[in-house]
Every structure is written in structure tokens, then in C-alpha cells.
């Protein structure tokens, strides 16, 4: 089994936004589950740290939350992307792609020499 990777500082926001975009409205547990599944269990996410991040995103107006009922008929808090959040996701995704591209080029150029 490959060593687990810590969540890179600042990327958690992007992950949460993207997750909410693809999955629609989700509760906190659902987001944590989804992040783990997508990363193939490689991602080491302290599930507790997810909640301050969710609160921060909400304070910034990028996601909103309200109480609802889960699949198993329990009261749960559901998060969904706001319009501002969608714009923020586009911006951050673009930044990420650019940086990833730069990193990729840089690393491959080194390998050739």
C-alpha cells in the first residue's frame, strides 16, 4: 500500500468546491467519504479538520448550508455550492492547472537532461 499523503495546504478548499460541483448537495460525512473514494484511500484527511474548512467556505460565501434529512432518515447538515462558489471554483481550478502544468514541464525538463 502506498504511503498516505497529507492534504496540501489550501487544496482542501478546491477539493470541497469541486466535490460539491460534481455531487450536488452533500452533508459533511458525504464529502469526507467522496474525497477518500476519489483519492483511492491515498489521501490522509483528518475528517475533523474538514468542518472548520466548511465553515470558512461558508463564511466566505462560496457554499451555503442548511439542515435536511439524510438517506437513512437522519437529520444532517447539507452543503451546496453558491454562485460565488462556482466562480471561485473556476478561478482556483484554472490556477491549479496552470501551476500543475508548470510543475510538469519543469520536472520533465529536468529528467531529459
Amino acid at each position, binding site marked *: 500500500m502506498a504511503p498516505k499523503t497529507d492534504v496540501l495546504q489550501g487544496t482542501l478548499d478546491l477539493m470541497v468546491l469541486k466535490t460539491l460541483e460534481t455531487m450536488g448537495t452533500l452533508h459533511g460525512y458525504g464529502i469526507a467519504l467522496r474525497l477518500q473514494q476519489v483519492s483511492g484511500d491515498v489521501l490522509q484527511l483528518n475528517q475533523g479538520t474538514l*468542518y472548520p474548512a466548511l465553515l470558512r467556505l461558508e463564511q466566505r460565501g462560496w457554499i451555503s448550508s442548511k439542515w435536511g434529512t439524510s438517506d437513512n432518515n437522519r437529520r444532517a447538515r447539507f452543503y451546496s455550492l453558491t454562485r460565488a462558489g462556482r466562480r471561485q471554483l473556476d478561478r482556483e481550478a484554472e490556477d491549479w492547472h496552470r501551476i500543475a502544468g508548470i510543475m510538469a514541464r519543469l520536472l520533465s525538463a529536468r529528467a531529459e537532461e
Partner: protein
Amino acid sequence: MGIIRERWSRLRGWFGFGRRDDDFAEELRFHQDMLEEKHRTQGFDAAAARRAARIELGGDSQIVEQWRDQRGLPALDMLRQDVRYGLRMLGRAPGFTTAAVITLALGIGANTAIFTVVDAVLLRQLPYAEPDRLVTVGDRAADGTSSNVDFTTVADWRARSQTFESFALMRTWLPTLVASGEAEQVPAVRVSWNYFDMMGVRPALGRGFTADEDRPDHWRVVLLSDQLWRRRFGADPSIVGRTIVMNDREYRVAGVMPATFEPLDAERYYQRAQLWAPVGYDVSMRDACRGCRHLRAFGRLKRGVTIEQATGEMNVIREQLRSEHPANYDAGSIAVVPLRDALTGNVRRALLVLLAAVALVLLIACANVASLLLARALTRQRELALRAALGAGRARIVRQLLTESAILTGLGAVAGVALAWFAVQGIAAVAPVSLPRMDHIRIDSRVLAFTAAVAILTSVVFGLIPAWRSASAGLQGTLAVDSRTNIAGRSRARAAIVIADLVLALVLLAGAGLMLRTVVALSRSDPGFQSDRVVTLAFSLVGKAYAEDPAVVAFQNHFLERAGAVPGVDRIALAGQVPFGGNFDCWGFHAKGRTKPNTADDPCIQRYGATPDYLGVMGIPLRAGRFISDEDLTGSQPVLVISESTAREVWGTDDPIGSEVRIGGADRGPWRRVIGIVGDTHHDDLTAPPTAAMYTPQTQVTDSFLIAAIKSSTSDPASLVAPVRAVLRELDPSVPVYDVATMHARLAAAAAQRMFVMRLLAGFASVAVLLAAIGLYGVVSHGVAQRTREVGVRVALGARRRDILRLVLGQGFALVGAGVAGGLAAAIFSTRYLRTLVFGVSPVDPATLAAAAGVLALVALAAHSVPIRRALRIDPATALRHE
């Protein structure tokens, strides 16, 4: 954008808005339940599933903590914690807290009070449009101010100047308003029609003056002050357009000025104007002549023009005029003075000295509180070391201690503002009348902002050093042993603070001492006349009945005869002005055969129009010849009596008696014969050389504005005012009486500003000495407490009282010696700033400095008395058992 929203949400969260803890707990519980369920489906039993879920989620109290930190503002939480903790610590040491708060309140309160005065008098914008462009203009007087000008010269300025937007003129005016049977001398001025426009103020009611009204025979139009309008006309708005009668003439009321309008004082001793009329001159008038300098000129500079540029241009114009009219202008120059400086002039230095003095008091207060904090830090060393050991960083501890300092300062500032409120009332009560804008003194938001700034600075100054020392001590100090070296270091710091206290206190004491000597010197200096038992009151004879001089002279004679018969009146005389009466009546003095090539350069001599007994009432000595007598009549040989200064200035060592002089114009008027020489008097300033003076008989130069000078045969001259007033009322009820004062009071008013500075400096010095004594007491008694065991051992080994005394005093006197030496040096350096204020004593007067040092040493000795008694009472047995 997102960040700002976040901050806002967090601030709301901190105040308790937003999601609550139990709301989040439920969310978290759901998460945990889901995890548990997942693990159960993977085959765990209930207990194991719960454990696994806990592990996967992490410690829920940490999560809640992190979530709360995100919800609110943890920095504010820390502050709240520090404040609560600090308040608890201060509450537990009430003695320390009280001492520190009182000390700070004294320092901050004194600063707030003086700043309130400085702000009102020096800093606050004048209430006119763009006041920075307003100036006074005129020939430069000896003291740097601008002197009076004549109408024609200003007309030339208007035509030639490029740097001024406009010029306005003002002349004094004392109309008598008779309404509902009571005659009143109204303080008034006549101004050029553009005066109010130049200031940028408009009447509240009616309209201002027009250019057409500022002409001869068209100028009988007035504007009323809000106060006069309310007092004499019942605030009746229909007054506008009506006529009022003054000096038997009718004046149309054009309008009423707003209550907020601050009139410029026509002359510094006059009351504030309550009535305005146009000047009403044109260049053909006699009073408008070149050399008829009795007008104040104000100007508004064009935008971007500096004082230097304006002065340069005006000097060029002055030289042009001098070459065109050589007889009318002497060699001199123009002074363009910013209006603010012209209004505050000589007060500025006095206030700045006081401001510096209170700053010293605040420094001493800071030093004392720092010293208290250092002493307290000793007892808190264990606590701080414990905190450091438990992981508090140095910054965290400094922050905690600074918070405590800030709380102390906050309390001190609140108490200080309360103190300042009382102090300001006191200052206003003792302030000299000549302090301008005193009526605008109040504690407002500007002053409170200043206090807050002072408080913040204060808490940093006195809090940072002890806090930093404590923090480092906390890190290096161990919990078990209290290190002796540390105590020594701290005592050194406290000793340095006490020395600084003493230095500052001595500077203030020396300053107060010099001002005290000045006031004493002023009261002892000879004004040239006898002020004892003399009272003066002014009245004016104007209107149709007194249009001709003989009528005035007849009234004078009736008055002297009747008032002289009032019981208690020893002698009585009339004069056009008296010394320290606030008037100036300077006439060109042209002695036959001794005039300058340009008669405009001849001296200007103060003229006192007097009746024969003036010399006797005032006690001025006759030096040669005779004084004015009953033989000097209107038709007889015109005569003149001069003062010794005048004789010296014009005739040198020659005998002036019998010489002939023209006064006023060099080429007109009768030749007046000098018949006598009298002693010198000071006209308005005891600190300046005596004023050159001349005396003319009222019969030959008749004044309508008169001052009766009455010498009482009892020690209570003021009791004569009522009967003399009654005599005047009997003679003519429409004659207004004003400006009643004893000569003593007039002299005291002249010294009022120095008296004011002296009183305040003495007050500050007392506070400073008290604070320094408290600081000294603290250090010495602390030293005794530290050395209890040492003293005990010495006593046990046979030391006598004298030895113990030497031990305690030795330490204290080293401090006092250093403080006094440093203080003397600092005083010699700093009292030079008092140079313009002191009189009759050198700013580095050795006797004053020695006295100040002596007072300080005595107080220092007193501060030692309690610790000494304590040291002498140390019982060796107890002292040794104690450790």
C-alpha cells in the same frame, strides 16, 4: 471580497451571532454515527465500531475547538482572557492599583487640561473662511507685530499689490447707546465694508455692508452682535431696517451677526466688539492723511502666496511710497503677520512652556508606575516563571503584562479626564483676560482623542520595559531559587527611575521658582507712580451737548468741584488716559530746532491730557519747573510738561525748559512751551524701559474720553465709585461710566499672564515633587525591607543607631545627590526657554536653583523618615528568625 465577508462573519460570530456550539455538535454527532455504522457493516461489534469511529474522526473536543476558532476571532478571545486575568490581578493588589491609577490620573489629567487650553488658543482653526490666508499688515513694530496704518496708504496698497486678494480696515469706536434710560458704552469698531466678506462670514439676519455705505456721511449703518441684539433689543427680528440712536445720531440697523461669529479684537485691551459700522473714509478726509496712523489693516493673501512673498512685495511698495512722499514715511519695514500669530502672539511661548512642563509631569508619572510595576514583578516572578515553564512564549507574557499596563492606563485616563474637567475650570478662573479664545475652552472629542493617544503612549512607555524584563526573567529564572543578581538588576533600574524623577522635578521646581521671583519682582518694581488708594473710572462726553471743547471743559470743572467734595476723596484729577489703562495716545513730537531731516522720523510720545492735580493723585514726582496749573487756560500760552525719558531722548543733556514743541503735525498747530519735567512712568509694561511721556492741560487739548483718577483718604478707594458715579449721573444721566478699576488691579492685570504661568508651574512642580518623593520612598523602603536581615545581623553584632542611619541614608542620599546634580544641569539647560517670561531675575539664577535643590533635598529627607524609623526598629532576633 471573500476575505472581507469572512472577517465580518467571524466578528459576528465572536459576538455570538451565527451557528451555536450545540448546532455543530449535532452535525458532528451525525458524522460519527455514520462512521460507526460503516464500521459495523464491516463486521465490528458496537463497542469496537464506536472506538474505530472515534479514532477516524479524531478528538472531538479539538475539532470543536478548531471549529470555534474559525467561527470567531481567537485573537480577541485572548485579549478578553488577558483583560479578565489582568483585572483579577489588579483587584488582588488594591494598594498597588490605587497608587498607579492615581499617579497616572495626575499625569494624564494635567496633560489633558493643558492640551485643552493649548488646543483652544493655539491649534484650533480660526472660525473664518480659509483662515490661513488671513494676515495683519502694517509697519513692523519693535516686537515684530504690525502697527497701525493710515487710510491713504492702504488705498495705495490696494492699487499696487499683486499678492493680496483684498485689504480690510478697522478702527476703534466707542459709541454710547442710550436705551430705556440707561446709557451704555458699547464696545464697537468701524470696519471697511468688505471686512465680513474677507472673513467669509455673513449676518444671521439682514445683510452686510455695501461699498456705497462705506463713504463719508453714508456710514451710519450698523450690524449688531447676537449678544447685544438679545440683551438690549430682546432678540426682536424686526430690528433690521429700524433705527437706533447713539451719540445723538440715528443709525439704521442693517443686520445681526450670528452668535457663533468671533469678532477680532480691535485693540488687545478692548472688549470684544458688539457693534459694527463702516469706516466711511475717503482720501480727501483729514483723518485719512498719510501719517494719520490709527487704523488696523487686515489682508487676505491670494492662494499660494507665502508670507515672505507678500512681505517682500509690501516692502517694495513701501519704498516706492517713501520716495514719492518722503515726509510721511520713516525708514522702516512692513510686517505681514498671520492672523493666528497676531491673535496669540505673546501667549504662545507661555503655553508651550506649560505644555512642556506637563509633559515632564507625565514622564515622572510613567517612571513611577514603571517603578511600581518593577517592584511588583518581583513578587510575581514565580507566577511568570510558572507560566513560562508551562509553555507561554515570551511574546505571550509580554502581551499579558502590557494588557495589565493598558488596563491601568485606561483607568488612569478615565480618572484623568475627570480631573482635567475640574482643572480646566480652575485654569479658566485664573487665566488672564489677555489669553485669547479662553471662552472656547472645552473638553471635546479632539481633547479626548489626545488623551487616548497620550494614554496609549504612556502604557507602552511604562509598561514595555518592566514587561520585557519580567518576561526574560521568567525564562531564565528558576522556580526554586530567587536569584539575587536579578533583584540587584531590578533595584538598579528602580534607582535610575528615581534619579530621573528627581531630575525632572528639580527642573519644574526651578521653573516655578523663577516665575515666582518674576512675579515678586514685578510687584516690587516701581511703575513710576503710587498706586495705593487710587481708583479710576472712565466716562465719555459725546453727543451734541459736548460738540464744542468749552462745554467739555466746563463739565470737567463742575465734575472736579463736586466729586472733590465727596467725603473720602483726598485728591481728584481727570486725564485722557492713565498708565495700564489699556489706551495708547502716541503723538509725533517736534521740538523746535531739534526735528529730524524727515519729521516723520521724530519720536512718538505718549500724551496724557491732564488736569492740575493729576501729578498729586498719581504721586509722580516733579523733577524741574512746574506742572500744569489752574493758570493754564484755553486762551493762554500753550504749555507742555514732559517726562525725564522724553527730555533725555530729545534734548540729551540740554535743559528743555522754555523750549517750544509742536505735537501731532510738524507744520501745523501752536508751538507749546515746555514748563516742567516729571518722573518717568511705565505705560503698559513693567518689564520694558519707562515710556517717554508728555502732559498737556485739558483746557488746551481737550479729551472727550476721560478717566477720573481719585485718591482716597481711606484704604478702600473702591468705596468712592458709587458716590462719584452719583455725581456724574446728577450732572448728566446720559454720560456712560465704564472701565472702573483700582490702580492696584490695573497693575495686577499687567502681570496676570506671568502670574498664570507661575501658578500653573507651581502646581505642576508640586505634583512632580510629590511623585518623586513617593518614588524615592518606594525605593528606600524596599531597600530597607530587602536588607532586614543585614540590619539585624549588624545590630546583633553591636551596630549603633547612627550606623544604621548611615546605612539607610547612604543609599538614599546617593540617589538624591545624583538626582539633584542631574536636575541642576537639566534646569540650567532648560530654563533658558523661560527667558522671555522671566523678569528681574536671571534664567540661571543661582539662588533660585539652590532654593529649588534645597526644597527637593528636604522633601527627599522627609521621604526617608518612615523607612528609617522602620530600619531602626528592626529587632535582630525577629529579623534573623524571619529568614
